[in-house]
């Protein structure tokens, strides 16, 4: 009894992945201060990759952990670990895509990687949180770096617009969320999930304060997950942001938002499921319809994938609504699969952005089947998988989601998934048709031939062709490898889904209250 205040005992081992991310972010920032292009172009991305690799290693080490941390503020369990894997893989892919992607003149150096690592750290906190305060902390730690990342191409107006839009709408979302939390705290008298659940199962299940708070909190999360009608920022922000950042947002942010919804709704608010489940089911249905019809007629691939991401968020919500461990498994499985198929698609988009002047337009893919089969095949697989074609991972993912919906009496949501998939074929197949059934546009061919040799005999245009374009040509080797890897993984998981299903089942086991 020496009177000294005793700090909470900390399970450093369980906390280690988070610490590695935070430490790595700092190291990257500091090392980036050293002068020299070598540091900026090689060492910093290398360190970022190393950080993520270490984090992955620590996650493997903590694979079977299931424990509360920091007085119950965080919980490292199956859901945390599995989703953290998704974040880390998405982060690695983003680092690879970012390397050589941004204009050297504008290259933001180490900040980009620091922000990326911080954002991943925020995601880990978010899905591990089981207290309203830590949850909000994670939410902001995830969001604020992303605002900056979207706007990181300082001289491109699209990028700046994207960042600003995201910031403004995101602030509204965060405000809604924190207001909702305040109301929930007011009703339940506690910020811990366990306490909230306990209070609700008592007599609060029809309390006005609690229900209003619940509504606002769901809106806040729905915003982050791009659920209609809170989705409208998505196409604009995705289109404007640099492609690697879009890829990161599409995969990792989606996983984080759905992960926190899983824990928040299926742990803290499970006793009030009768109140929120029908509402969320309706949101899911609306999202599926809005996302799929919105994607029709888009000519920008990033916009198309943004709308498809909205629709997929609707599919994923189905797994949240049902409130069963089968639903959790289906959601986490689909999130992992979603990462695979989206990363394959974005790698191809990024590669074509470097190779042509057509940006992310569908036209940039025309004739890809004959000119670049190693890009065309992964893209084809990714599109088929996103549409839920059998023999791809997307089919198994959708199948599990529909199975979970039907098993819990939400057959109509399962039907919505099927109808949505039918509509989605219209735009996914359009992309495939562009690659295999259209000729490469003359413009793209000219760009590809840009170099010391004159491209065509037509001499009058030669001056324009040889004039230095704003984009200097950069190689796409690593992107091709990435696209092939993720495309192959999509196929393999579609044929042998069991290992990944077991992985996702681990997340389902994290919720002992569910059946």
């Amino acid at each position: 009894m020496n009177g000294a205040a005793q700090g909470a005992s900390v399970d450093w081992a369980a906390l280690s992945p988070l610490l590695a991310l935070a430490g790595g972010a700092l190291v990257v920032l500091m090392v980036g201060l050293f002068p020299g292009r070598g540091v900026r172009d090689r060492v910093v991305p290398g360190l970022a990759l190393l950080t993520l690799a270490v984090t992955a290693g620590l996650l493997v080490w903590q694979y079977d952990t299931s424990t509360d941390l920091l007085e119950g503020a965080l919980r490292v369990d199956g859901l945390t670990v599995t989703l953290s894997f998704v974040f880390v893989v998405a982060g690695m892919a983003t680092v690879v895509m970012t390397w050589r992607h941004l204009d050297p003149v504008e290259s933001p150096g180490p900040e980009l990687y620091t922000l990326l690592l911080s954002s991943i750290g925020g995601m880990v906190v978010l899905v591990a949180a089981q207290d309203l305060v830590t949850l909000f902390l994670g939410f902001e730690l995830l969001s604020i770096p992303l605002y900056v990342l979207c706007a990181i191409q300082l001289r491109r107006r699209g990028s700046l617009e994207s960042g600003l839009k995201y910031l403004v709408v995101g602030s509204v979302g965060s405000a809604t969320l924190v207001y909702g939390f305040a109301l929930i705290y007011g009703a339940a008298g506690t910020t811990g999930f366990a306490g909230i659940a306990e209070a609700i199962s008592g007599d609060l299940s029809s309390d006005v304060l609690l229900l209003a708070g619940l509504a606002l909190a769901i809106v806040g999360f729905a915003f982050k997950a791009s659920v209609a009608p809170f989705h409208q920022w998505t196409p604009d922000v995705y289109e404007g942001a640099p492609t690697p950042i879009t890829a990161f947002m599409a995969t990792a942010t989606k996983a984080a938002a759905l992960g926190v919804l899983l824990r928040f709704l299926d742990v803290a608010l499970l006793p009030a499921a009768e109140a929120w489940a029908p509402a969320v089911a309706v949101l899911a249905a609306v999202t599926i319809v809005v996302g799929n019809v919105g994607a029709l007629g888009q000519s920008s691939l990033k916009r198309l994938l943004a709308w498809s991401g909205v629709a997929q968020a609707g599919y994923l919500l189905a797994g949240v609504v049902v409130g069963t461990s089968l639903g959790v498994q289906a959601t986490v499985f689909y999130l992992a699969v979603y990462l695979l198929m989206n990363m394959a698609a974005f790698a191809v988009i990024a590669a074509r952005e470097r190779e042509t002047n057509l940006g992310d337009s569908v036209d940039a893919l025309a004739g890809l089947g004959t000119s670049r089969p190693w890009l065309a095949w992964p893209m084809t697989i990714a599109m088929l998988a996103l549409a839920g074609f059998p023999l791809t991972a997307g089919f198994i993912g959708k199948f599990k989601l529909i199975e979970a919906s039907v098993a819990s009496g939400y057959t109509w949501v399962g039907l919505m998934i099927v109808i949505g998939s039918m509509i989605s074929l219209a735009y996914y197949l359009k992309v495939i048709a562009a690659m295999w059934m259209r000729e490469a546009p003359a413009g793209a061919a000219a760009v590809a031939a840009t170099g010391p040799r004159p491209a065509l005999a037509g001499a009058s245009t030669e001056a324009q062709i040889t004039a230095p374009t704003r984009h200097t040509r950069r190689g796409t080797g690593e992107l091709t490898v990435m696209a092939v890897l993720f495309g192959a993984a999509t196929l393999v998981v579609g044929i042998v889904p069991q290992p990944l299903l077991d992985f996702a089942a681990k997340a389902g086991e994290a919720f002992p209250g569910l059946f």
Partner: protein
Amino acid sequence: MSATTLAWLALALPLAGAIVTALGFRFWRGRAAGYVGTAALFGSFACAIGAFFALQGEPAEGRQLVSALWDYAATAGLDAQLSILVDPLSILMLLVVTGVSALIHLYAVAYMGGDRGYTRFFSYLNFFVFSMVLLVLAGNFLVLIIGWAFVGAASYLLISFWYRRATATAAGIKAFVINVLGDVGLVLGAYFLFRGTGTLDFLTTFERAPEVFAENDGELVAGCILLLVGAFAKSAQVPLHTWLPDAMEGPTPVSALIHAATMVTAGVYLIARMHPLFELAPTAGTVGAIIGCATLLIAATTAMAQTDLKRVIAYSTMSQIGYMVMAVSAGAYVAGLFHLVTHAFFKALLFMAAGSVIAAMAGNQNMDRMGGFRRAMPFTFGCFVIGGLALAGVPPFSGFFSKDEILAYTAERGGIFLVLVLVGYVAAFLTAVYTFRMIFRTFLGEPVPEARELEQGHLHHPEHPTNPASGEIEDTEVGFPGPEHHVAEQSPTMKVAMGTLALLAIVGGFLQIPKVTHLLDDFLEPTFADSIYFEALSPSDAATFVGLGLGALIALAGIATAWLVWVREPGTPAKVRERLRPAYALFVNKWWFDELIGTVIVRPARWLGSFALTAFERLFVQGTLVGGTSGIVRAGSAAVRAAQSGFLRFYVALFLGGMVALTIWFLLQA
């Protein structure tokens, strides 16, 4: 190696052959693809022989082996495995299928030598054998249905092999449609049985059937009759037989393999395999026997009046399969299967010989234009006569013993079956007549120009090859006779194949000489040990010898009649035709079955189709369903995109609207 391993190998080799020949289409030169395909079949046959000995090594009660490669779906109430059943019955079929197939492949190596689709042909042919082996080895209904459907598909591919011949593609479509009708019957029948027994596995089905179904239980009879529909379609029994004569549009090795020796006997195999069920549902068995009997008579009479060489043999095939179906439906399983084996030998031989003649005629199949080939093609003539004697049932050729056994054992059932046997004897007389009509018209008499040319050692080649069926100029890119064709006299491999079959057609009957040998009886006993007819049906000595004598007499009388009518008094056919005008019209028009099916099924179906196209499809489906839904989706897309204005204030407004709506919903819960 165990019997099941060898059976799996016998199944795998033709599949491997099909894939290898198909994938190597760029590399095969000359006859390489043919030799690869033939080697695969001989390997498969060797495996079948190995499996036979391995099975004989087992104790008699342990000769029903099931081997599953993997479970496709093994959930509660469903046991869909990729499994095979190796027992004496399936091994017998395996031996016949792979053995005859190997010989026919060998024949085709030379016979198809001039065809542009040589590689494609052997790939198809290997695929067919794989499907057929899958069918006979199937250990449950699922695999049986797969094999059944594959066989139909392979048959379609091979009938339409010369796909630029309009008649060939039409025949292929006809065969496929009728076969699919049979597939539907088989699937529905399997479903009826599955609903009762709750299992797809054959042996378990047979075990449970007596517990689940009473004798002549309505559902069981329905299931068995549906199985019979499948059997009738594959085996060309009335009224699902019209595809078989048309299938003669395919190359002759195809006719020999698929439409004589193997595929068309699948129905016989099916009934024999399902015998525990048919014995529980005697009504279905009687239906099968009557249909078989009707077929054997209708086909035999039709064969009398046809002039297309291959079609006559096709009708005789139908007729012979009618005997087999009658036998196995009546419970004379061994007799039916015995005839299946001998028929495979002599009918494949007849087709091969016919193919040789047709090649000498440069593709023409019309008997009216043939004659006097005896001296030009002595080997073919000899083979044709051996096959003909076996088909007509002249002792001691193989068909004599097997046909006699069918009639003798079926007669033992008594009652209505005696009538059926009587019809069988009448048809046996007709068989002898039409068989020797073929021989006399083709090989005797004045040599036609083609025969004379061949006697000079030169094969006839027309300047412009024409389709014998329609007379149109042939596209020789893919069409027979192509630039080259081959007769047995000039090709050693064809001679080997035909010689082997001729030998088998002579001695095949010695497997089961009444009261002397009973090799098949002994071999098949483990499969049919549970049968109520297997032991019970055994004709007395007197009945046996009366039957043998009668059969021999009838065959000889038939041959003598044919000799009188077509050789001694060549004017007779015209006179008979005059006198029996209505009967002749009936036979030459094939009992008007094509017209009947056309009026009863095809025309109403076509009317319904055109109605559906004009009224239903255009107005309802295209207009309302497709136009309506895509219109709604398009309108929704426009609305969503209109809302996506790019202005943050609208976004936030919608955000707040959604928030208010959600909050109101939650407050309403309070």
